[in-house]
């Protein structure tokens, strides 16, 4: 009894201490909530983590298509106890009906998270029990001569799974090729992207894109500008903000989380007057060596203008295509697109970083000019034409060729440098009333 009391007291003290630190959150994010989750990452009360094993809270954010979300129940069960699920700005989840519903902005979410977390740390709220049934996926117990499911040297399903098979390799060795499904919810890849990768060692020998998660189409300033002429200033600030947010993501993936947080913070309330601060950030990014020494050393990852001729990816490869050139307001501003040459990973980094500065410059000079509104817009990822899927949707088709032969870390760098959007990673459902 006395021992039990000591433990209870200890748990209370630990709980009180733990409350003053950030809540580790693993986020499963739909396309329309990606920016909201990024803003959540700016809050000190919360830390977005890369694996469910480090998280206390599973956050399911944004609107998905009907039916279960791929991998969600599995991830829920991979969170250590005490765990809690929060559903943010979306419908009740079919697989986790007990998830706490929160509607509203980041401030409201953080308040609710803090309250729930305090309760669960104090033991007032029970941790969620596992969702999936406690049964083996494959029958293996008691099977085979040793009762572990295996047979012979490499056969059978020891402990429930088979061993990988051999495959020939470019250097003549025939060693194991391990098929792995990575994603759809892993910090190392963009949200929703599921890749079926064949790994031999740390090298990728084959890539297939897995089934896509259904999400609701995000609506941003560029989509609205398809129908309504929109101030150039607003569009260009949005474009700069988009690229800064992309930069924040890729910086975190390359181990520069502090610089990533700075980029997010700048993007959060960006205005044309922030140009000097943005240039300081970009200079810090260049000095970090990430472009010259890291992504610049990747062999491969080149996207030619023939594959994607539009947007920063196309321009990084030397395509001069830019819908802004045809717009009168931009012509008045003497807009000339930044054009790269090589079309490799480093070129895409340089392209977007140059375009951030250019956009802020345009925004500062734009005055009251408006642009677009006639069914076609130069978005941050390239040309958007109303009622057509954007060009970025075709990026996924080239992914297998781009990634095959790369080391895993290089492949992750290349994937992130493409700035894949929901049209590439997911099945996009348009709001009812609109056609595809």
């Amino acid at each position, binding site marked *: 009894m006395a021992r039990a009391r000591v433990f209870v007291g200890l748990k209370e003290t630990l709980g009180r201490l733990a409350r003053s630190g950030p809540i580790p959150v693993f986020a499963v994010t739909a396309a329309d909530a990606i920016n909201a989750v990024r803003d959540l990452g700016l809050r000190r009360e919360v830390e977005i983590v890369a694996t469910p094993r480090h998280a206390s809270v599973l956050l399911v954010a944004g609107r998905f298509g009907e039916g279960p979300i791929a*991998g*969600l129940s*599995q991830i829920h069960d991979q969170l250590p106890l005490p765990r809690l699920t929060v559903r943010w700005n979306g419908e009740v989840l079919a697989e986790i009906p007990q998830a706490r519903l929160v509607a509203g902005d980041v401030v409201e979410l953080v308040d609710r998270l803090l309250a729930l977390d305090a309760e669960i740390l104090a033991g007032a709220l029970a941790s969620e029990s596992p969702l999936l049934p406690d049964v083996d*996926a494959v029958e293996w117990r008691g099977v085979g001569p040793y009762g572990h499911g295996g047979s012979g040297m490499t056969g059978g399903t020891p*402990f429930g799974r088979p061993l990988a098979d051999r495959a020939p390799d470019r250097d003549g060795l025939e060693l194991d090729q391990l098929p792995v499904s990575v994603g*759809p*919810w892993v910090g190392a890849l963009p949200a929703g992207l599921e890749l079926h990768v064949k790994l031999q*060692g740390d090298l990728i020998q084959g890539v297939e894109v897995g089934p896509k998660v259904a999400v609701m189409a995000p609506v941003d300033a560029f989509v609205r500008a398809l129908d309504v002429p929109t101030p150039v200033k607003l569009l260009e600030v949005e474009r700069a903000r988009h690229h800064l947010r992309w930069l924040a993501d890729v910086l975190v993936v390359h181990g520069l989380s502090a610089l990533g947080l700075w980029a997010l913070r700048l993007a959060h309330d960006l205005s044309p007057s922030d140009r000097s601060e943005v240039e300081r950030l970009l200079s810090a990014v260049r000095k970090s060596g990430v472009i010259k020494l890291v992504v610049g050393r990747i062999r491969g990852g080149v996207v030619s203008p023939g594959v994607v001729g539009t947007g920063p990816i196309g321009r990084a490869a030397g395509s001069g295509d830019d819908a802004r050139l045809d717009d009168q307001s931009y012509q008045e501003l003497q807009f000339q697109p930044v054009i790269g040459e090589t079309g490799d990973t480093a070129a895409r980094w340089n392209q977007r970083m140059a375009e951030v500065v250019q956009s802020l410059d345009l925004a500062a000079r734009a005055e009251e000019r408006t642009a677009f509104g006639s069914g076609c817009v130069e978005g941050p990822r390239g040309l958007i034409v109303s009622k057509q899927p954007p060009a970025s949707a075709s990026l996924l088709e080239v992914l297998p060729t781009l990634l095959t032969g790369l080391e895993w870390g290089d492949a992750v760098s290349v994937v992130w440098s493409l700035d894949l959007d929901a049209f590439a990673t997911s099945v996009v459902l348009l709001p009812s009333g609109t056609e595809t």
Partner: protein
Amino acid sequence: MAALGSALAVFLATVLAVGAAKWAGDVLNPVTLTIPERVPFAGGIPPDYHAWNRFHIRWYTMALLFLAFDMEMVFMYPWAVVFIREGLVSLVEMMMFILILLVGIVYTWRERGFSWA
């Protein structure tokens, strides 16, 4: 030697203390996990295969080079201690030894042994 005894004591004590801390953690939060809770994480889709496989390292050339240089390191330590005592002779002798080994590095570099095979 007494010093190394202390080193051993420090090592064992730390390992044991950490082990005890983890044991206490398990007592505070008893570990009974269901099968799905134990599935390895790779983004939500359970793996089809065991991750343990005949892992193809791409730097086997470098690994073999390391074996040779590890041997060289053994000679360097006693050399460093008698360096001043023996004077110029020691410098020249070790330089010769190292230059011979450097040929191996240059050769490996020329054969692109340091890039991923």
